[in-house]
């Protein structure tokens, strides 16, 4: 074994367990390379490209959260965007009310992270403590999110205000009132004259997302390879059995569901900070099918594949939008085709297949079947 590999193995111990794709030294070298490219990217991207790329990246947290609950813990939510939306709305409502008085958005950030988790806790308590099974959880979440959309759509009237924040119905938070009060961008800092504003076009925002993305990715890798991660996989494989091994499956499911809501709400807050805009659309069918497509197509049992899949597919659906009508059909075919041909995910699956081909040809070293955690 290469000494370098041993060194990396030791340094990366917590994040480098068997429950994640990509554990070899070359992987980590390339990982560092990618991070380096991300760090220098703003110097060669145009203003639009940076803005657009930042937008793509805001989705990562939503995707990671879905990957965690679906791929690792076996809970599929078809309404995951509900938490993105609730996070965005809660952040925006508090932000609009406090930005002028406080000059920062710390409390808004807290509200944006906390509110969706509370909702997730309530729904999760109902669903998991009733031992509701998989497909019910999946479709109930879809019904819940669609109903939130319907509710928010009708909040255009004057009465629907929370303090200074007018819910604005279908027009979006803070709109549809004489004076438009947009939700503010994240404004963080510890003294009044050293506030940092993370608007969508700023490099600060871009670096914030890249930083949070790397931290979340590594943090989740550590989580899934920890004892808790093993328990989650055990719950996915067989909840009844896991219970008899002394684990309170309901509580763990609830906990991981709340964590995924937290991640989704982070996407929501960043999305609002990016464009100062959020509408009930984010609760609709398409916003909820998109993360499912990313995670399913990329490979739901791998955080790495999920991140790559999310960024690539968001980029693709924007490209498709430019082509016109065919966007949804193509996405539908990608989802269906991906699931039928490579059920473990395209990114995971193609890699595995080519790896096997090379093994057969005697190129490269033997791989141990399935050790990638798939």
């Amino acid at each position, binding site marked *: 074994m290469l000494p370098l590999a041993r060194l990396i*193995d030791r340094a990366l111990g917590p994040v480098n367990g068997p429950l994640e*794709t990509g554990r070899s030294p070359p992987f980590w070298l*390339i990982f560092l390379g990618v991070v380096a490219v991300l760090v220098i990217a703003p110097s060669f991207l145009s203003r639009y490209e940076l803005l657009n790329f930042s937008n793509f990246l805001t989705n990562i947290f939503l995707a990671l959260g879905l990957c965690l609950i679906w791929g690792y813990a076996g809970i599929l939510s078809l309404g995951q965007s509900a938490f993105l939306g609730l996070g965005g709305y809660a952040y925006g409502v508090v932000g609009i009310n406090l930005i002028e008085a406080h000059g920062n958005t710390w409390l808004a950030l807290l509200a944006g992270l906390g509110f969706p988790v509370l909702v997730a806790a309530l729904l999760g308590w109902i669903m998991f403590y009733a031992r509701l099974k998989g497909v019910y959880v999946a479709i109930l979440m879809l019904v819940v999110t669609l109903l939130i959309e319907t509710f928010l759509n009708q909040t255009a009237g004057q009465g629907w205000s929370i303090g200074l924040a007018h819910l604005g*119905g*279908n027009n979006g938070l803070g709109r549809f009132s004489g004076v438009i009060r947009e939700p503010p961008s994240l404004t963080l800092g510890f003294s009044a004259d050293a506030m940092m504003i993370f608007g969508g076009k700023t490099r600060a925002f871009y670096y914030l997302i890249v930083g949070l993305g790397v931290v979340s990715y590594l943090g989740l890798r550590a989580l899934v390879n920890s004892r808790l991660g093993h328990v989650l996989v055990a719950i996915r494989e067989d909840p009844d059995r896991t219970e008899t091994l002394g684990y309170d499956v309901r509580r763990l499911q609830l906990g991981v569901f709340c964590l995924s809501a937290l991640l989704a709400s982070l996407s929501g807050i960043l999305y609002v900070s990016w464009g100062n805009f959020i509408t009930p659309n984010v609760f609709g069918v398409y916003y909820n099918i998109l993360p499912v497509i990313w995670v399913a197509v990329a490979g739901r049992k791998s955080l790495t594949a999920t991140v790559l899949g999310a960024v690539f597919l968001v980029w693709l659906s924007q490209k498709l939008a430019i082509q016109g009508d065919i966007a949804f059909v193509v996405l539908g075919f990608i989802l269906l085709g991906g699931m039928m041909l490579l059920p473990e995910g395209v990114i995971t699956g193609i890699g595995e297949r080519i790896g096997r081909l090379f093994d057969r040809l005697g190129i490269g*070293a033997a791989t141990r079947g399935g050790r990638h955690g798939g």
Partner: protein
Amino acid sequence: MHERPLSFRRWLGAGVALGIAAGLALAGTGQARAADDGPIKICAIDDHSGDFALIVKPKTLGYQTAIKEINDKGGVLGRKLELVFYDGQSDVKRHQELTEKCILDDEVNVVMAGATSSAREAARAVAVKNKVIYWHNNQGEGGIADHYSFFTGPIPEQQILTGVEYMIKKFGPKMYILAADYGFGQVSAIWTHVAAGLYGGEIVGEEFIPLGNADYAATIANVQKAKPDFGVFYLVGGAQYNYYPQAAAAGATIPAMSTVNIQQGYEHKRYPPPALKDMYVPFAYLEETPGDAAARFNKMAREVNPDEPYINEMTRAGYIAVHLMALAWQRAGTTETEETIKALQSGLFFDAPEGRVFLDPATHHLTIHMRMGRINEKHEVEIVEDLGFIEPWWLRTLGVNLVAKDEARQFLPWDDPRYAKYKK
């Protein structure tokens, strides 16, 4: 114990990662910047998929028709017009992203985007922030006063006030409002209250229908119980159109007025008669609009796209917007934004398919020749009254004058103290 040989699989996974990152990073870095002698770019973001595709698709045809017509005559300022089209997918966030792309990436000269008020606001906010001229080209709830924003669709004082006044005179004072339960429907309902107050009407019932609601047994009974003289319907989207056949089947059809049905969704062509009998529409444009100009316009549009099922009010609005921009660029002698806005505010008029339109410098809305149409039992359109040329006067009565003073807000009927008493 954890010894694991390198595998091609892992190499590959990482390679894909790097490839995508690099691809994204490099995508488009080499794009050529628009030169001043290149084409003038008009960004159009219309829904060609999703819920609103049916009503919005004809709008793109309006842009295409105008651009073809202008380019055939040599373009503007010696430059051709070019349509940069994106599918908004009936998705608000998509409108926001694509507007960013139009402005920052394609560097277009004008943005025309969004049909629903939400998509409009998403796109408009981006355009305004980037100081780019924005057009909204279908009917709307009105009230927007903004330096960069221009409108070609009819607004409440042109449609709702006149329409309700006509209906009260013809059928009596009692009306029942059915409105889609979102911004547009709610504001239109308030305007209807205002109209009822101004013209001696009485609102005997009001119901807001969630988007996507498909069955109307309760609503039909409620309407019948209230015994209105006529209905005022602001129903939006496929599921809400269900009201009409269901009411017809229950034998509960009443004369009704709408500002969105027929002129956008051509329901009279899509439903077997007589489901929409006695539907009254105060319209700027229908394919059935009388006159040579309308006939010429329909023919021109059909040459551009023979498959379009119906030339609707949005086709006309898109068509006018492009022509007005062309006139403004011509008059300004440049495509520079501030100069162009000055030209747009210089009193432009254009011979639109329904008659002459005048772009009001003070409010950035149009004076429009409005007509009242009735759908008969065979689902043909009868023009029952010529409502005449109606100015966009409401914003002016609130003191808005965009020539003299910039604004960046939307006035809603509840912002007008004179109307406070009509609200419930």
